[in-house]
């Protein structure tokens, strides 16, 4: 409390000093820039971002994924606006399929948007797991983490809406499944679903509404990104060592060092991204996205939702208490899927270990990687059809067949175990470890790593 007050006072003081300087001498050599800047401080803002704001000097390539996410957001918005131009929301499937071959350049835009959705999630997942590994969610960056998670949830909503407006067999099936979740709300569930769809089933009414939301949400995300950055600039970036910046010996200005580093990362990323766009555009698609009508034979969400889908399907038994069905398996699935999104919000409270970076936490390091493995395996479980629920094989060495270890588990049980660990990681492992694990000695500062 005291500290916050002192900090606020200092801020007030500094602003006074700054306004005094601005009034006295011109900030920039060029008079036009000076004129503009004294009225709208774009240039001093840029100078502050690029030159005056301190960044840790040891950020690794893992820190590229933040700016890459921003670039992906821009790419998606720009291509999305162009894709919306010839879209007939009354008959989206026909409109999209015909525009691909009749509107010049549309096919490239469409492939970028389509493949871009996956790549957006790829960079965001890297960004999130980087934050997990280096403890970027810990104080004073809780708000950065929370706003980031809100962005992630908004992104999933946006991606889902985009998926449904294609109006193919698969996306209509997906829309049915997702809106079906709301029926687990007691008493008013069915009504909520009807209001969401504007009808009893997935009709044009729902598709039009979903299109509007799909168009709107990205701009909400842009707003949240602004808050994400605002919170970040207030507290400064985390770094691979997880120790605070202590003085000018620890810092470097963003421009030109990180500008060029981000550009290099962007260029490498775009090379891979464009390779996928031009040569493997259908890799992450599903065949039933190219059919209309009928029921999909195999409902499977986009890969970035698979871990949640696996958690949803893990529950096959009703929760029975004294002979009464307390919660049906479907309700359990939906509740735990929701919890999977909610639990990460509590990370800053659950993990109170003084070391931010997992580098200095020899025991937690293993649990972190176990968590990564569990997430990937959950994704794989989500991918299986109901029919392929059978034994799970984990080959110890994939090239040698006879080294196969056969797990005596069917996919549902396996999924349930993985779901169990997913939650145990947050609720048990992190609090216990944060209490009992003794981190290795932290370096005194970024400039002086520990001598060993």
């Amino acid at each position, binding site marked *: 409390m005291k500290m916050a007050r002192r900090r606020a006072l200092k801020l007030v003081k500094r602003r006074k000093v700054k306004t005094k300087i601005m009034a006295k001498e011109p900030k920039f050599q060029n008079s036009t820039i000076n004129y503009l800047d004294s009225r709208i401080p774009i240039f001093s803002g840029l100078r502050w971002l690029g030159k005056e704001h301190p960044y840790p000097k040891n950020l690794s390539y893992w820190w590229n994924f933040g700016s890459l996410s921003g670039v992906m957001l821009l790419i998606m918005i720009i291509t999305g606006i162009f894709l919306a131009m010839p879209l007939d929301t009354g008959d989206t499937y026909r409109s999209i399929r015909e525009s691909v071959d009749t509107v010049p350049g549309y096919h490239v835009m469409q492939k970028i948007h389509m493949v871009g959705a996956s790549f957006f999630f790829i960079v965001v997942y890297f960004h999130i797991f980087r934050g997990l590994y280096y403890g970027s969610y810990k104080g004073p960056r809780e708000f950065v983490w929370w706003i980031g998670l809100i962005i992630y949830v908004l992104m999933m909503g946006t991606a889902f809406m985009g998926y449904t407006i294609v109006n193919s067999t698969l996306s209509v099936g997906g829309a049915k499944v997702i809106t079906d979740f709301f029926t687990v709300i007691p008493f008013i569930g069915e009504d909520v679903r009807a209001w969401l769809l504007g009808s009893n089933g997935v009709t044009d009414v729902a598709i039009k509404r979903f299109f509007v939301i799909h168009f709107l949400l990205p701009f909400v995300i842009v707003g949240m990104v602004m808050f994400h950055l605002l919170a970040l600039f207030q507290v400064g970036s985390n770094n691979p060592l997880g120790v605070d910046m202590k003085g000018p010996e620890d810092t470097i200005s963003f421009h030109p060092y990180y500008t060029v580093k981000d550009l290099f990362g962007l260029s490498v990323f775009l090379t891979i991204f464009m390779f996928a766009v*031009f040569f493997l555009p259908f890799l992450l698609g599903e065949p039933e996205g190219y059919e209309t009508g009928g029921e999909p034979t195999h409902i499977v969400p986009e890969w970035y939702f698979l871990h949640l889908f696996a958690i949803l399907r893990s529950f096959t038994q009703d929760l029975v208490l004294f002979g009464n069905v307390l919660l049906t398996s479907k309700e359990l699935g939906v509740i735990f899927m929701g919890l999977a999104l909610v639990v990460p919000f509590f990370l800053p409270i659950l993990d109170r270990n003084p070391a931010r970076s997992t580098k200095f936490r020899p025991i937690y390091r293993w649990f972190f990687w176990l968590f990564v493995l569990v997430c990937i395996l959950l994704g794989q479980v989500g991918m299986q059809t109901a*029919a392929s629920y059978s034994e799970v094989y984990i080959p110890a060495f994939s090239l040698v067949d006879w080294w196969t270890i056969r797990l005596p588990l069917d996919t549902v049980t396996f999924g349930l175990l993985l779901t169990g660990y997913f939650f145990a990681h947050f609720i048990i492992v992190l609090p216990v470890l944060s209490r009992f694990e003794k981190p290795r000695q932290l370096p005194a500062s970024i400039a002086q790593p520990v001598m060993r």
Partner: protein
Amino acid sequence: MFKNLITAAAILIVASATSWSEGEKATPKEPDHPWHFSGLTGQHDISQVQRGFQVFWAKCAACHGMEFRRFWHLEKIGYTEGEVKSMIAEYLRGRGETFDTSTYSIQNMPVSRVSGAPDLSHAVLANGKTMEQGANYIYSLLLGYDRVNDAVLGPALRVETNESSDSFKEMGEPITATFESGETKSVTRKFEKNNFYLYGEDNNWVLRNFVDIRTDFQEYDAEGNALPLVQSISHRLDETDSEYDGKYASAQDGYSALVNADNAWAHRAEAHYHEIASWAAGQFYNPFKAGGVISMASPLVDLENFHRTDFTAEELAQDASALENATYWLVANQDLQPRILDLVPSLQDAYNAIPEGETASSYRPFYDAAEPVRQLLLQMQPETKDAISEDVVAWLAFSSDMNLNARKETGLWVVIILSILSILLYFFYREIARQEFAKQAKEGGPWDENH
């Protein structure tokens, strides 16, 4: 850092090597076929696509539609605007409509005419995770009828007659068939191109076209369900119906032969018994279709004309399908194309000049005009069913992804330029890092004491 990379790699290996066993009986995996468009630099072969379109337009379009494709897209596969316009006019005339040429750019291809026949606009994408998989699937499906009919008819009969299957002989080995007349013959069995044959010792077939027996004698109950084939045939054989007179001989022979013979193929077909039992009229067996039953008859059965190159002058003059097929060969045999196209106008003139009362083959001037065309056609390579199927699938693949050629060409440059840019930026980054860290060591970075 290094340790983490190793851990991450290990995790990826374990995760990607984890496999799930299939819970249900899988449909046979269609074999890989080398497609022109597959691979990083693969492109649609436009002349193959055009051949495929001709087959599509002549055969597939009778039932299947392509409602998400416009007619003018055909300009991309070598047709001129005039040709496409006359094609639209002809198509609309068939439906009793007239073609307003101002609507040319928005004329879509027809919708499916038979309910249940899927639209083929994106057939290749709709049938596989990748274009190659989808193409392999359709290709296998088209040829799948022939490959497996030898495994079909056996079990229904075998089960119906409670035949012991302990001893059986392979197809092609001679067996003794007892016919209903009491006569016994040593015959060999063979399945070929949808037909079941029993060959006598003199190498003449005693029975042919067993598949036809199915369609000719199939009976239905009051609700329209197909009765078991053996039952249907026996009913018919008991009746005296002049309509079937001509077919009795072969049906009787085939029935008796099958009842008495031990069926080698019955064993291979065991697994498919349920599908066969549930067959309704107009359903066919195709192992590549999930469930093994397909409602589409083999589209290649009546394509025999495509195997012909020996047209008579009569056919050249009068048979539209012969000429249609001739144009098909023209695309397939590009070297002979200009020479034949040169001769076609004089052939048409000669045809128009045939006087009343004369026929094409008897009228000498026409015969003389037709002979060089006939000779050139004889030199042409007939297409096999495999090649026709490949062409059709090439057209379907083109329809699914029309921009593939342009996209891959552009993509190659985009990726090359971006790779070079990445390398340049890497060295630029190294240099900037060197300079900036030298400066940082001397002066320190930005720092706000108040922060």
